[in-house]
């Protein structure tokens, strides 16, 4: 602590712990307290070019926010902060979240800011708002994200852009015309955003195809993850799980990508889309590499449209607050945001797969919190691709990898697959990049709250999200010690 201690605490004998924090003083940031997930809302996720064509990120984020305000009666409320972002963002949306707040029923005095961490944007927003609450800087906040590929920004070519900039700075008509004289016909073609990694030129799918092959993940295993995602999500919708987590938008009432009638046969009939030009190479990691006692058989392309997430439009938000704020607003507490850890990997030099950062983040997160991998009731591992889930799990089960890459004593561990993405994940719901974090956090918070209510014991969920740029973010949610009061336990009249 850089802050000088008070004379009292430095007096010998009055403070037995030399590293103890100074006692709380007026004007000093109060000690840490807990931040809680109080609820969430999202709009159903639409397939690209589907129901939300023409809807902007601001339209969608505002809709998600309005649904949240309606569910929790926050009209006119001045919240501490609204934080969120979008991955594919127009330059005019520099204040996307603040503009959304201004268009919502929240108090216009609610501050907001934009944040972006690729596909981890939504979860990072949750972590950021939670931390502000934990520090006592705010009492309540909303975290979320929005993304649309149907209304993605289209940029002009580099040549045209330079000419436009030059022309706008030109002082005379002649100079302006001269600036445009440099424009070539090819410059008039628009430049659309790509999902390719800027440093490698490989798309995320191609990157993951390499990781998938390196770990020798089979097509069948990936299809099974995809099938479970669809069936679990459909079952959750049918059971009404999302009735208080989703508000319809533009006539879409359920996730458009979901296929309740999906089957192993249907998934098996799809042609691979990623890794097609990957020269067949033998797995270099995990069981597939060691089983044969030498180089294993090369794996052909395995990643299809069915076991990869489609491009999707959507938005999600999570309501967070301190326990006091929740009580003042008669809001039940769903889950405590325990902790979070981000990680990044060196994929540029081929040292690690692009989407493997969560494999690094989770062990560090759990170690800090004294938890083991099996200490969770629910695992929410974002399904960027079916194989990202599988390579992450395979990595944790691999003794050698965990020693050399994660610095552990041995394999990190296995999870009970029946606790994995129990209500489906991105393969079925879709993955509007920045909106996925909010979807997962709200789902996981409700899961642990329900579980705690059901069993009377605290429940815990592990969330991990991989992101472009070799990023990963993991977080722990835990049900509160005293489960929400049920109607049977309290009567008023």
């Amino acid at each position: 602590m850089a802050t000088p201690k008070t004379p009292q605490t430095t007096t010998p004998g009055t403070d037995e712990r030399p590293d103890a924090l100074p006692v709380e003083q007026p004007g000093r940031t109060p000690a840490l307290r807990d931040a809680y997930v109080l609820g969430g809302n999202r709009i159903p996720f639409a397939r690209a070019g589907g129901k939300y064509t023409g809807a902007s990120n601001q339209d969608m984020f505002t809709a998600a926010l309005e649904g949240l305000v309606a569910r929790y009666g926050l009209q006119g409320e001045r919240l501490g902060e609204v934080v969120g972002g979008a991955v594919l963002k127009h330059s005019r949306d520099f204040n996307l979240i603040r503009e959304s707040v201004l268009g919502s029923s929240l108090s216009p005095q609610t501050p907001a800011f934009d944040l972006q961490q690729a596909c981890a944007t939504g979860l990072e927003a949750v972590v950021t708002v939670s931390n502000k609450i934990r520090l006592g800087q705010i009492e309540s906040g909303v975290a979320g994200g929005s993304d649309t590929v149907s209304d993605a920004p289209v940029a002009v070519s580099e040549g045209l852009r330079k000419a436009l900039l030059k022309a706008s700075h030109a002082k005379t008509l002649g100079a302006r015309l001269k600036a445009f004289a440099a424009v070539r016909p090819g410059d008039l073609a628009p430049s659309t955003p790509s999902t390719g990694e800027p440093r490698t030129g490989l798309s995320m799918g191609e990157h993951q195809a390499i990781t998938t092959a390196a770990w020798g993940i089979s097509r069948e295993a990936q299809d099974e993850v995809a099938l479970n995602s669809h069936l679990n999500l459909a079952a959750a919708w049918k059971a009404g799980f999302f009735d208080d987590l989703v508000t319809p938008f533009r006539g879409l009432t359920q996730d458009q990508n979901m296929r309740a009638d999906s089957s192993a046969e249907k998934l098996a009939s799809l042609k691979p889309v990623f890794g097609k030009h990957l020269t067949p190479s033998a797995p270099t990691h995990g069981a597939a590499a060691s089983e044969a006692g030498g180089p294993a058989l090369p794996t052909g392309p395995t990643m299809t449209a069915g076991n990869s997430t489609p491009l999707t439009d959507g938005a999600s938000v999570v309501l967070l607050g301190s326990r006091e704020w929740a009580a003042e607003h008669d809001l039940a507490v769903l889950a405590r945001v325990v902790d979070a850890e981000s990680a990044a990997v060196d994929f540029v030099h081929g040292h690690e797969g692009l989407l493997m950062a969560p494999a690094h983040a989770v062990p560090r997160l759990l170690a800090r919190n004294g938890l083991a991998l099996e200490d969770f009731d629910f695992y929410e591992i974002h399904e960027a691709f079916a194989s990202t889930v599988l390579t992450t799990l395979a990595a944790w089960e691999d003794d050698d990898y965990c020693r050399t890459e994660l610095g552990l004593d041995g394999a990190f561990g296995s999870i009970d697959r029946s606790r994995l993405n129990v209500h489906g994940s991105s393969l079925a719901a879709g993955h509007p990049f920045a909106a996925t974090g909010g979807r997962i956090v709200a789902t996981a918070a409700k899961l642990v709250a329900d579980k705690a209510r059901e069993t009377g014991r605290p429940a815990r969920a592990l969330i991990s999200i991989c992101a472009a740029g070799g990023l990963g973010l993991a977080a722990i949610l835990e049900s509160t010690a005293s489960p929400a009061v049920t109607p049977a336990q309290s009567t008023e009249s």
Partner: protein
Amino acid sequence: MTAAAQEAPERRNPRLVTLPTLPGLGGLYAKGVASSGRIAVTRSPVGRVLPGPRDVVLPDVVYRVADVPTADVTEHLTAYQRLVGERVDDTLPAGYLHVLAFPLATALMVRGDFPLPLLGLVHVSNAVSVHRPVRVGDVLEVRASAENLRAHRRGVQVDLVTEVSTGGELVYRGVSTYLAKGFRLPSGEEPLPEQTDEVPREDFVPPFPTARWALGSGTGRAYGAISGDRNPIHTSTLGAKAFGFPRTIAHGMYTAARALAEVGAARGDAYDWTVEFEKPVLLPGTVQVAITRTPDDAAHPGGFTYVGWNGKSGKRHLGGTVTPR
């Protein structure tokens, strides 16, 4: 090494020729084309033996430009950095120094007494050492010399050595090896096995790629515009066809510079950078790339190897290393 050893005595005191400024490449090309024609006329390139021992001497001269200012290169440097994917800052990357010194080496190659034709020389490999970073504003001395004429399985090789120093301190040394196909040394000397400089094709098993370059048809023209190397095989389909390529080909140094750039900051301020060129990259084209970190152990310093290949044919385009010093 034989050739080098043979020539060594003659090169103890090379003649130092100081030029006032770095020459422009355009003029040099015109001269190079003319002299190549002369060489082609007098010495038919295919399977011809170079004339007698007296004539296969490299010009015993070192070209030097004493004060090359870099204070005003920023715009050009930025364009280079953007093109090859280098971080845009005030450091002159090794590839840029190569571009800077290239005209001086070219001036040497177009001398009347240079024994090989400029056009038709194939750049087969390049090895660079950066001893310390060169920054915008440094005043540089650039030297170029030709060394080590030697036999090769498919012709004759020569090294063009460029050195950059500042304040009397050597900061950069680049060795560009060129092959003149079809020529043979008059001594009838055969290349040593280790001088074949080639990995047998069947031994190359493509690794998992870490990157992919989608190179457009304008790639050669874009690098040509910045490097000044407007060799028609890079910039014009007709020019490329004249040399037996179906389409234009990418500059080898462009691809090598991209690989260097992708290693990024991990290469440090001072580093060695090597490349060997194999199959040319036809444009437009896609190059699969793998950059691999080599572990740091007692035997080898840690660094990076890189390889670029054609994903469909599995043929290698280039390979090399980047090793922090």
